[in-house]
Each structure stands twice: as C-alpha cells, then as structure tokens.
C-alpha cells in the first residue's frame, strides 16, 4: 500500500511497534543490573540502540528525522561521558576511580548482590549505557542520512 515512503510496510511496522518497547526494557534491565549479571552499560546501551535502529529500518528515515535531534543526542552523549568521569572523580581525595560511595556511602552501599550496591558502578553503567545508546543511534542516523548512493 505504502509504496512512496521508505518504510518497510505495515507488517514490519506493526511487529516493530510491539517489539521496540520490549527491546528497550530488556536493554534497560541489562544496564541496571550491570554490576550483578553478565552485561553492563555497553551491552545494554547497544541493545537499546537496537530498538532505535529497528525504528529507523521499520518506519523509515522520514519518520526518524522527525524524532531525532542531532544536537540533543550529541549533548546526551557528552553528558553520559561527563557522568562517567564525575563518578570516577567522586573519590579523587584518595585516588582517581576510588569507589568512595561503596566504602563510605551514603547510597549504593548495600549488601553485595543487591541492586543498590557496588558504589559508583551502577552510575557508571547508566552513563555508559546512555553514551552507547545515543552514539550508536547517531551513527546509524548518520549512515542513513549521508549515504552516497541512490537506489
């Protein structure tokens, strides 16, 4: 039916609508449990970016352009990096990367194995996840926008 747009048709779009939230939730789970289970910021961020890439493929570049803001994603990527650096600098009084939250609190200092433990690791996982997600989505959007061939 929809032959003019660059999306992939109604079947793929419907399936994508159903799966994108699930992929996002699964990726967020991997990020949030990075210090407990296999995976972490990078893997989870890449999974969430998979949802963004699926959106780009299923709904097409035109739809993507409406929802994607280059400056916002660049800034978010920078914030991810800065949050990582900030977490690493929390314990600069002792040493760079000193895990002061884990040793002294006030939060993320629970029993090992619980969600709110491991000091700065959850913060770093979130920061890396944000950075990887925004970076990969930006890279894919860039590839789609600036391709040099015509079909």
């Amino acid at each position, binding site marked *: 039916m929809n032959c003019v747009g660059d999306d992939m048709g109604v079947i793929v779009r419907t399936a994508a609508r159903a799966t994108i939230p699930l992929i996002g939730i699964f990726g967020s789970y991997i990020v949030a449990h990075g210090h407990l289970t296999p995976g972490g910021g990078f893997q989870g961020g890449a999974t969430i970016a998979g949802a963004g890439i699926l959106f780009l493929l299923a709904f097409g570049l035109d739809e993507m352009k409406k929802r994607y803001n280059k400056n916002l994603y660049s800034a978010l990527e*920078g914030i991810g990096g*800065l949050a990582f650096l900030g977490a690493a*600098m929390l314990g600069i009084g002792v040493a*760079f990367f000193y895990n002061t939250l884990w040793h002294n609190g006030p939060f993320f200092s629970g029993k090992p194995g619980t969600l709110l433990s491991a000091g700065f690791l959850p913060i770093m996982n979130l920061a890396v996840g944000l950075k990887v997600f925004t970076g990969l989505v930006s890279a894919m959007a860039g590839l789609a926008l600036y391709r040099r061939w015509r079909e």
Partner: protein
Amino acid sequence: MSAEILPYLIIIPLFGAFSMPMVNLAGRKAREAWAVLISGATLAVGSWVFYWVYEKGTVLYTLGAKSPFGQANFPIRIVWEVDLFGALMVLMVTFVAFMAVIYSLGYMRHDTGLDKYYTLIIILELGMLGIAITGDLFNFYVFLEIMSIASYALVAFRNDTWEAIEAGIKYMFVGSVASSLILLGIALLYGEYGTLTMGYLALKLSQNPTIVGKVALALFISGLLFKSGASPVHMWLADAHPAAPSSISAMLSGLVIKIGGIYALARIAFSIYGASVSVKTVGWLIILFACITLIVGNAMAVIQTDMKRLLAYSSVGQIGYILLGIGIGLAAYGSQTGEIALAGAIYHTFNHALMKGLLFLIAGAVIHQLGTRDLNELSGLAKTMPKTTFAFLIGAAAIIGMPPLNGFASKWLIYESSALFNPVLGAIAIIGTAFCTAAYVRVLYTFFGRPSERVMEAKDPEKSMLWPMLILTIAIIVMGLFPWGISDKVMIPAAKALENQLAYVATLMGGG
C-alpha cells in the same frame, strides 16, 4: 606520595572532549576557546609533571586505592608509573598538541564538523598521554587504541577527497593488524604470568623466563614497529600522514609514531624484558630494522615531488635514527656507549617532534595559501612568504643536523655511539643523513628559486597559524644553544631511568 596532579593529565582532556558537544552549542568562538583552554591547561599540568619527576624522581599513582596492593601480596591494581623518560614524553605531547590546536584555529577555519575535529584532537592527545604515563600493560593497550582510533578518524577527516578516505582506511587496516598483534602478546603474557602490571611482570619474567614470554616479545616488537612506521611496513605512513589535515600530520608524525611506537617499544623492551631476554639479540634485531628504515626512508624522501609526502618519508628516516639509538642501547646494555645511544634516541625523539611538527605546520601554511603541495609549483616562495620560509629553513637545517640547532646534538650522540659500537652502523647513519640533506636542500632550492606566477599572490599566514610556527622555531633555536647542557641534565638521566629496570620495579613494589 604526592602524585595527586597526575590524574589531571587524563581528567582535563577527557572533560574537555566530553563537554565539547555541549560547548559547541554556544557557537564557534566558544568551541575554539574551549579547545585552546583545555589543551593549554593540559600543557600546564604536563609541564608540572615533568618538573615534579625531574626534581623528585619516579612517580607512582594507583587507580582506585592508596596502594597497588589490594588484600593480595602482589600489585593487583592498575598503576601509572612515570619516570623521567615518560615525563619527557608527556611534556613533548602536551607542548606540540597545544601548538597544533592553536594552529588549527586558523588552518581549519573553512572546514565543517569542527566540533568533532576538536573532540578528536583532544582525545588523540589523551591517548598519547595515557601511553606515556601508564604502568599497566592492558591500560597501555586501551590508551593505544584510543590514540589509534582517534588518528584513523582524523586522517579521514576531510572526507570530501577520496585520497583522505583511502588513506584512512589503509591506516585503519594496518593499525588494526598491529593492535591485534600487541593484544595477542598481552594475552599470552597474562595467560602465562597472571599479571598485567609492568613492573611485576618484569619480576615474574626474570624469575621464570619462558618461551611464551619470548613469543609475546616478538609480537610486541612486530606490532610496535608497524605502529612506528619502521621500514618494511612503512607504506601506510606515507599515505596517512600527507592525507591528514596538516595540524594532524604534525601530531601524527611528531607524536603518534613516537609514543605509540618508539616509547612503547623502549618501555616494553627495557622495563619489562630488560632482565629476562638476551638484550644483545633483541638489540641487533632492532638495529637491523633501524638500518633498513634509515636508508629507505631518507632515500625515498629525495625523490618525492609532493611536499607532505617528502616530510612523511623523512619521518620514516628519522624513526630509523631513533630505532638505531634504542637498538644500540639494548645491544650495548650497561655500557657507556649504550647509555649515550639511548640518550641520543630520547633526545632525537624530542627534537624530531619539534622539527617535524614545525615542518608540517609550514606545509599546511603553504597549502592554505596556494592550494597545492606539489614542489614543482612552489618555486620562489621565499619572496612572498618570507617568515614561513625562514621557519622552514630553520626546521630543515635542524632536521639535517646543522651545528647551531637542536638536531645536531641528538644526531651527534647517535653517530658517536653507533661509530663506537660498530663503525659500519656509523657509516650507515651518515649515508642516511646524506640522503636527508639532499631531500631538504631540494625543497629549499625550490623555495629560494625564481618565483613562478602562482606564488606571487601568496602571503604569510594569519597570526594564529604564524605564532605556533614561530614558537616552535624559537624552541628549536633555544634548544640548539644549550645542546650539551640539555643532554647532561635531562637526556642522560632519562636514559638512565629507562635503563634502570630495578628502580622501576622497586618503585612499584615499594608500594608508593
């Protein structure tokens, strides 16, 4: 231990690079000011680190704790360990990178995507600083990759020309192969000895030298010779360095091949393997490659008509001298000759960073004015670009090794030690210089020749491009005024610090 300043060498550029996308929203002026501010602050920290290490000796910094020993009885944490050699490299990197950033303000003005350019140039500096200060093998690999990936992207930065893209892809393939060799070497060592800390690895290796350790050394040497552009594998360098924007070429030729190749090679050969392999064999192996590099690089420079390609081949040739110094330093380990050779190599590393940085910045100014780097069209440039030509004259004279300039002292140390070690090597080094002289005299002859029509409308570049060139020229002249003072006060102690594996290990095991 008061090494609190050390992490700021990494923190400041990291902060600058990550915040660049946000600063970029405030416009072009803010972005440029930010880049200059960050690299200037890094230079200040770098100078302070150098001063500190020079006054107080080797510095040890543990990441994440007070001491490198956890609950274990061996160093388990990531450490940074800076001896005088490393501190000298830090000073060199921060200085030349600062000059390149200032130069970029004028030189890159007409390009787009500059937020990414400044982010990448700061990341490149960060990677090099990390390699210079690290005392942990895997940490070294991570910084090596940060540096390499930033330089692949920067080589292909002007992606409107196929030349740049081709060079970038070629550089990426070769660089990735080299990195994989190094990673494999690290994996072998980790599997065999169960530690990645350089100093502790040295201890384990000397207690129990195995064939796996030797295989790992072979992988390191091959990978790092790739990265430094030594001769049988220099083909990527001659493409990548001319294709990059000139400010980047200055950093690639002046810094990246030194830090990612020479420095790492010297660090691994001396500080890790110094006591556990036959230094004579390894030394002669490096000397062999050095001689090939020396002749091939300088000879290829003579026949180039592309100015930047000539400079790139000349870099290959100068890497040959540095490798020769390091090879003799290894082969004659412990003797006076070896120490002089090593000091010459370190001295030449520093000098060549200044000289080649300057020469590439000049090449960039010429391209900026005339849009060509073909030497056949640059005849008579001295008339219309006198300041640039003067700077080129100084840079070329220094790289040839003319007496009043800084290149003389470092080359003299290398000639002297190689002649003492083995006269044939001395002869080869002199032949290399003959080729080098021929190449640069040719360029100078072109510059001072009869002006062609094309160069008549050229003029000296604007201030932001002229100042870095002038500062580098002044640095070359001033360093040339005190050749033996610098050699005795800085370079010989740096060579001693590098040779003294025991002290390197003791600083680590002492716990800092």
